[in-house]
């Protein structure tokens, strides 16, 4: 019921609170800086350290693969952090302040209320990754030469899926409680568990972390696809949202 009105409000809130701008600027900045850091790290080491000249002889010359690795490391680390920070208070805060009770006494469905929040964050991250990806691609092109644009698109698509896993699970944590701090703590716990699971043999193949491995391969033109990890990540997104909707529909406000 009235998903459109709820989505409009969420997007407006993200604009007014500068959350959309901050996410876009932070991720675009890392998109810009990653190829530069990859390209000039040996030079920085050479100039900054006393035995820098000797150390740089041991480091292979920087390549587009280093730029891709740097980009993925920065975008995923800061992207997850932003996903947690932006989603942890979305429901908890509205329940705590009483705005959820006011709005949900009207013909606004609880699932629509939640899905609008997820979709607004999904749009913010999509826009931010488009900008970051364009910046990263351009600087990699300038500093290292051309990359496969299809591979780069695929890489960024997988990064988006990876980040949406954390948006969805943090939204679920935010639905569980009235405290955004507790929701943030729970989401951090989920993040740590998923990171640990990713390191386990066998079961780790299904970890969202493997999606980033596939993204890295796409960026450098090698390695097979990680379909189980992608399927599990999509299932986590859908499952997190479905769980949040079921829980929220049972809660009293």
């Amino acid at each position: 019921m009235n998903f459109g009105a709820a989505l409009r409000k969420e997007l407006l809130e993200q604009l007014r609170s500068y959350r959309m701008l901050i996410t876009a600027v932070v991720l675009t900045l890392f998109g810009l800086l990653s190829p530069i850091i990859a390209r000039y790290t040996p030079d920085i080491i050479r100039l900054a350290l006393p035995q820098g000249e000797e150390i740089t002889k041991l480091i292979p010359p920087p390549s587009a693969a280093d730029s891709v690795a740097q980009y993925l490391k920065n975008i995923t680390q800061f992207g997850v952090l932003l996903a947690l920070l932006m989603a942890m208070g979305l429901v908890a805060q509205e329940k705590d302040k009483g705005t959820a009770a006011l709005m949900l006494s009207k013909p606004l469905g609880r699932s629509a209320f939640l899905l609008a929040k997820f979709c607004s964050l999904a749009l913010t991250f999509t826009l931010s990754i488009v900008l970051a990806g364009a910046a990263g691609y351009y600087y990699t092109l300038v500093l290292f030469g051309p990359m496969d644009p299809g591979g780069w698109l695929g890489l960024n698509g997988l990064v988006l899926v990876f980040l949406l896993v954390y948006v969805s699970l943090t939204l679920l944590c935010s639905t569980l409680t009235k405290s955004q701090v507790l929701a943030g703590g729970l989401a951090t716990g989920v993040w740590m568990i998923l990171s640990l699971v990713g390191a386990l043999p066998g079961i780790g193949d299904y970890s969202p972390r493997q999606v980033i491995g596939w993204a890295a391969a796409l960026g450098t033109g090698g390695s097979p696809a990680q379909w189980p990890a992608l399927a599990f990540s999509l299932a986590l997104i859908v499952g997190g949202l479905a769980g949040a909707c079921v829980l929220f529909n049972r809660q009293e406000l």
Partner: protein
Amino acid sequence: MIAVRIEGLRKSFGRVKALDDLSLAVEAGSVFGFLGPNGAGKTTAIRILTGLARAHGGQAWLNGIDVTARGGRRAASQIGYLPQDPAFYPWMTAGEMLDHVGRVFGLPGGERRSRTAALLKLSGLEEAARRRIGGFSGGMKQRLGIAQALVNRPAILLLDEPVSSLDPFGRKELLDLIDGLRGQCTVFMSSHILADVERVCDTVGIIDRGRLVVQSPKKDLLEQFAAPVFEAAADRGQEEALKAWVDGLKAGPPPWLDSVVLADELTARFLVNSLEAAKRQLPELLLSSSFVLSRYEMVRPSLEDVFLKLVKQRRAGS
């Protein structure tokens, strides 16, 4: 036609029974005062009616729609709701908030704009229409609260303690506004401020510990249940002496006295069960008191007197 019907509604929080077999019915078009002491279950009943809380038993209907059953959310389009402490998005302006509520109700653009303008005027927020709600005072938020509750021209308006945070001017304005809605929609208004309910409501329901004590047209209630009431006023500066005397009387009341309360710092009201005994003995008591008496009279009983008597009777009975 019945607009609000509640039958055997039950709700518990742990061992505490917030609603204990509550039943009542409110005629369409009336202004219903839902009275009760703090913690009586008023807010819980309203939250169940709005679909924000679930009942543990019983049923409730709004305009014939069972809000306790599946599909009860259909009633949401017919109601306006003002919570006890209305909360808004602080980054929105008052105009944007009303527009957002209009969108949620699915009003078309033109109607939304005209409704927003009309409600800003009605609530006295025209000049603050472009200001962020985060900077509003409590009274302004309360007025915005009533405005948002009226966006959809509700058939039933549920108001939870609507005037509790308003100053005397704001309170008068809001009560006048509610009075003006008589006949246009059904107003279901909870309050523990009896003077406000007495002023604006035509029907009253008194609830205590989750159960309905009485429901009746206000006029009938006053005639049927009002016991004789006496009022005694003390001279200025005698506040403490009056209070000490009243406390002493409460500790050991004579058999003809039901209750004694301080209507204000200088006025005591006596609810009695024997008019003759009170007429004989109350003046003696007053004259032997330590405070300086400035006035003593028999007065018309108020809704507050009826409320105190009924709640006391019920508690004594249970």
